[in-house]
Structure formats: structure tokens, C-alpha cells
């Protein structure tokens, strides 16, 4: 599904290099988790894949189902099936959540050559999806993320995911700022979307999210690349012992 090869990325302004030869393959239908210390480049990787401005790719490639993502505009990547759930979902006052969802969904359908959904079709779809995610109809009427609690914002991200039906979902620290109950709700939403044709890349600092969203593969990222890859047990190991051992094995220290 997703194939990242030797990806090197620096900040557009200045010389700071963030990704230093990142390699990662996520197979179709699998859930991969990426853990790693602060500053390891996890969020940058997710932004670069989604096409956020401000970064320069100096080498490497990132392919979604064989299509080179790095040559595409952010909106084209979305239409191709990539979805990034933001760590900090953006508030957009004055734009209703429904308008936002409908604009996004129809833009993607149009880009893929499908017919746009009528107002009625859309309304039915969004109500069904919201209900299955236990999202209040009232939340749909409010402006995008404005006045939403941390949990509501993350649930809204999952609702967008459910509506847009992407093939490759990246969750950037979706657990940050969530209490235990909110995390359970969000995780249930994600789990409901797991399917044979859909892959997930879950970026997190903590094992506890992975208790809810159980990964097939766990990667440890530091210093701009994947250092170590293992099964679900790797997350438990990190939770217990920290990153020091893994970092040391690669000649890195935690302070870095």
C-alpha cells in the first residue's frame, strides 16, 4: 500500500535535516505503529506524506499503491486515498462541519471521476456515519472544530476518515490530549474502519493507544529513520524499558 524509500527531508527554510533515509513499507490491510522519542521526525514524516508546504524532499520516494505521492498536490494525494488525522485538528470558524465534509467528499469524488453526492444522499450518509461513531448531530452543525473538546476534535477526524473512506490512514498522535474514555471512543471508531483493503499507520508516544488499536507491526523511529521493527510486543518492551537500549544499539543517545 505505502512504500517509503530512502526518504530525505529538510526544512525549506534553513538547513535542518529531519528525515535521513527513511524506509517503510505498509502492506494492504495492515496496521503499523510508529513510536519514537520526541524530535525523531514522526510528525514531519506524516506532514511530508500529506504534502504540507515548508519541507524540501532532497532524496527518496513515497509511493501509494505504486503512485508517487511526492509529485502530487495535497488534494490529489487525498483523492488518491491518503488521509492524515491531525495531531491538532484546525478550527475553521464560520464554515459548518457539514459544508466542510460535503465539499471535501464531493471534491474527491469529482477528482476520481465519480458523480457528486446530492444534498439528500450526503445527509443520509453523514448521519449514518456520525451515528455509528456516536457523534452528536449537533456537532455536525457547528463550525469545523470550533469550541470542540479535545475528544470531539479527534472524533471529528475519525468521522472525516469514515466519510472519505481513504485507503491509507495516518494517525498522528491521535491519543494526545485524550482522556481514557475519549481514547476508547476514538479507537473504536478506528477499529470499525479497519478492513482488508485499508491500511493504517499509527504514530504514538504511548503503548496505551496500541492496547485499543492493535498493530500488526511496530517500528521504532529516531533520528529521522526507522531504527528497529518488530511485532506488537515491541511496544510493550518500549513501554517498560524506554528507548535507551534501542538507541544505544544504533550509537544514539536519548538526549538526542
Amino acid at each position: 500500500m505505502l512504500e517509503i524509500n530512502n526518504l530525505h527531508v529538510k526544512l525549506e527554510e534553513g538547513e535542518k535535516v529531519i528525515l535521513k533515509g527513511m524506509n517503510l513499507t505498509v502492506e494492504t490491510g495492515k496496521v503499523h505503529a510508529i513510536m519514537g522519542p520526541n524530535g525523531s521526525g514522526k510528525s514531519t514524516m506524516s506532514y511530508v506524506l500529506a504534502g504540507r508546504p515548508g519541507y524540501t524532499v532532497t532524496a527518496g520516494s513515497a509511493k501509494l499503491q505504486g503512485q508517487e505521492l511526492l509529485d502530487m498536490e495535497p488534494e490529489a494525494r487525498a483523492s488518491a486515498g491518503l488521509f492524515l488525522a491531525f495531531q491538532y485538528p484546525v478550527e475553521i470558524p464560520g464554515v459548518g462541519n457539514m459544508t466542510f465534509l460535503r465539499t471535501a467528499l464531493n471534491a474527491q469524488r469529482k477528482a476520481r471521476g465519480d458523480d457528486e453526492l446530492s444534498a439528500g444522499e450526503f445527509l443520509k450518509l453523514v448521519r449514518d456515519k456520525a451515528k455509528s461513531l456516536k457523534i452528536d448531530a449537533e456537532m455536525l452543525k457547528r463550525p469545523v472544530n470550533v469550541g470542540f473538546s479535545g475528544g470531539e476534535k479527534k472524533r471529528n477526524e475519525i468521522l472525516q476518515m469514515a466519510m472519505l473512506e481513504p485507503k491509507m490512514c495516518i494517525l498522528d498522535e491521535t491519543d494526545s490530549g485524550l482522556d481514557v474514555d475519549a481514547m476508547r471512543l476514538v479507537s473504536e471508531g478506528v477499529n470499525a474502519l479497519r478492513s482488508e483493503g485499508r491500511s493504517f499507520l499509527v504514530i504514538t508516544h504511548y503503548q496505551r493507544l496500541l492496547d485499543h488499536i492493535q498493530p500488526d507491526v511496530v517500528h521504532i523511529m529516531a533520528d529521522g529513520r526507522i531504527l528497529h521493527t518488530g511485532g506488537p510486543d515491541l511496544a510493550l518492551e518500549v513501554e517498560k524499558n524506554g528507548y535507551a537500549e534501542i538507541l544505544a544499539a544504533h550509537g544514539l543517545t536519548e538526549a538526542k
Partner: protein
Amino acid sequence: MAAKEEMVAARLAGLTAGPGLSGPRAAARARLAAMGLPGRRDEYWRWTDPAALNAVTPAPATAAAEDEAPLFDALDRLKIVFVDGVFDAAASDDLALSGVEIARIADKIPGWAEALYGTLEAAGQDPVKRPFAALNTAQATDGVLIRVTAAAAKPINLIYVHKSELSDPILHHLVQLEPGAELTLLETGPAGARFNKVMEVDLAAGARFHHIRAQGPDSERRAVTHVFARVAEKALFKSFTVTVNGALTRNEAVIDIIGNDAVAHVAGAALGDGATGAFLHDDTVFVTHAGLRCESRQVFKKVLKHGAIGTFQGKILVKPGAQKTDGYQISQSLLLDDDSQFLAKPELEIYADDVKCSHGSTTGAIDETALFYLRSRGVPEEEAKGLLVLSFLADAIDEIEDAGLKEEIVARLETWLSRHRD
């Protein structure tokens, strides 16, 4: 001094005033002669060159193609149509509406209108001079005289059609709401090549007045408009203006809150794209609080691109004794490129010690994070920018209380945005 008087005389020479109202017209002519026409050196005209308004004849302005359905077309409303400032009886509805008396200056002037005509304009000349308002009072050829005695059965829509390239209409409307009366007044259309309009609004105790105006879309037109409002106890005055295009638009609002517990809101959203013609939009607002516990809000937003210019001059004056005043003023611009310009002069002048007054002014660009967020969901860049423009305008648009009217205004803005993508 002589030059000033000569300029005024020359400016008036080509104009033919409408019938009647000889007293107030003469008084207005005298006011104008005393103050003269404005120049760039006048404090209130530093950012807006009045030359095109001072010129004896208007610069030609092409009427825009009518390629959109008329605004508020589906709404049950009473239409009063002016074509280049001339009343169009055939296109207008009967001037009969339950709860309302409607007349026209060019037809028959009722006693109440004789008494009101020019008085709010004259009062609004102090402390800031407004020469084009005095000129209007002196020379207006026509105007609608609306006296509301109860809740008006439906909105009244003044529709201004622009056809002639050289039209120079001068209209002067009066709106008087009796105690507890209610009216929604809509104004739509470009009116002429150069439009001078004054509206005097007199709200008695407990009256409720909603004003929604759409200016545009002609690119070459020029307009100078004034709203003078007197707001009595517990009355509500709400005015919203949306402006698209226009070589020059100067909208002045002069609002006198004279009673206690009254509310006055004035808001505007202006969108200009220098690529389709020069754009200068100027909002000049003066709100005076004389009553106790009154609330005023000024919310003005401008979206500017390709060399468009927006200006805002807004003042809140709180008179001695106007305690518990709640005054708010915000003027903001969204610059869609580096070529455009926004100038703002917010002013507060407060002579009471127990008041809450705030003002703010900001200029900014599209929020890159929000733009990326929308694009990451598949919304193409230009469409995403359009959504963010509407987001920016939301506070101003929210000043329209009626959901249906708001929806129509938003749809109009969406059309404009889709036609002005880069």
C-alpha cells in the same frame, strides 16, 4: 474662499433638484457652500480621493452583464425599482403594504417627511463634515418615504438598476418607524455610473429596523452613500452591507443613539479584485452614545486582491452620562496577495466612566495551516481559499439575523469567489 464657493456652484450647476422641500434643500445648499467640497487634505478624505465625486460629470461606467438571478428573487417582498435613479413604475409593485405608508419625493411628500427631511443629515454634519450628504439633501431628484406604523407585512426591497453609462443618480430616502414598529429594508444593485444616496432612519422607542444592502457587481461604478440613524429608547438598528467590485465606494454610517437600552449594529463585507478593475472601498462610521446601557457593534471585513484598496474609519463617541455603554468595533482585512492595501483608523472618544468599549483592527493573509488542512481532505486549493474567505467574513455575515437572507448573501459571495480564482 471664492474658489471653494465656485467649485460648489459648478458642481451644483448641472444638477436639477426634485420637487418640493424647498426649505431643507436651501438649508442644505447653504451647509454645502459653507463647508465646500472635500479634498485629499481633509482628515476624513486622506485615504479616499474624492476627485471622482467632486467632478461635475461622472466618469463613464459600463453596466455589468446580468448573468445572475436577481438577489432575493424568491423572497416575498415589495419591490421598488429605480433605473439609473428614475422610478420604474412598471417594474415596481404597488406601493401599498400593511403597516406601512409609502410615498415618493417625486410624487407626493407627506407632512412627516417634510418635517424629517434633512434633519438627521444636518445633525450628522457635526463634528465631521459630510459634503456629499448635504449635496444630496439639496439636489436629490427622488427617494422613497417610508413610514412604518406596525410590523411591516413583508420586507421592502429598493432595487437599483444601472443601464446608462453616464447616469448620476441622487436619491434620498426617509424611513420613520413609529414606536414598536418593525421593518426589514433591502437595497440591491449598482444604481448608476455614479450614485449618491442618503437614507435618514428615525427609530422611535422599541422600533426594530433591519437593513441589508448588496452593492455591486459593476466594476467601474462609483458610489457615495450615507445612512443617518437616530435610535430611541429600546430600539434596534441593524445594518449589513455586502459590496463586490466598484471603482469607488464610500459608505458612511452616522448613528445617534439617543435613548436608553437601545442597540445599533452596523456591519459590512467588501470584496475587491484589482484584476477586474480598480477597487477602493471605504467604510466611514460614527456611532454616538447618549443613552444609558446601550450597545453598539461595528464589524467590517474586507477581502482584497490584486491591488484592491480598503479603508475603514470608525469612531465610537460616548457622551457624558452615557453610562453602561457597551461599544465594540472591529475592522479586519484579508489580503490575498502582497499588492493589496488596507488602511484603518479606529477611534474611541469616551466621556463617561462606567463603560465597556473595545476596538481592534487586523490585517492578515490566508492561514496556511487551515489551507493545508482543507487541501489534505481533498479540497482543491482555490476552493479551499474560498472557504477560508467565507470563514473570515463569518462574523460580519452573522450580523444578518434572517437565515434565508444570510444564505442568499453567502451564495452571492460564493459566486463572486468562484469567478475570481487565480
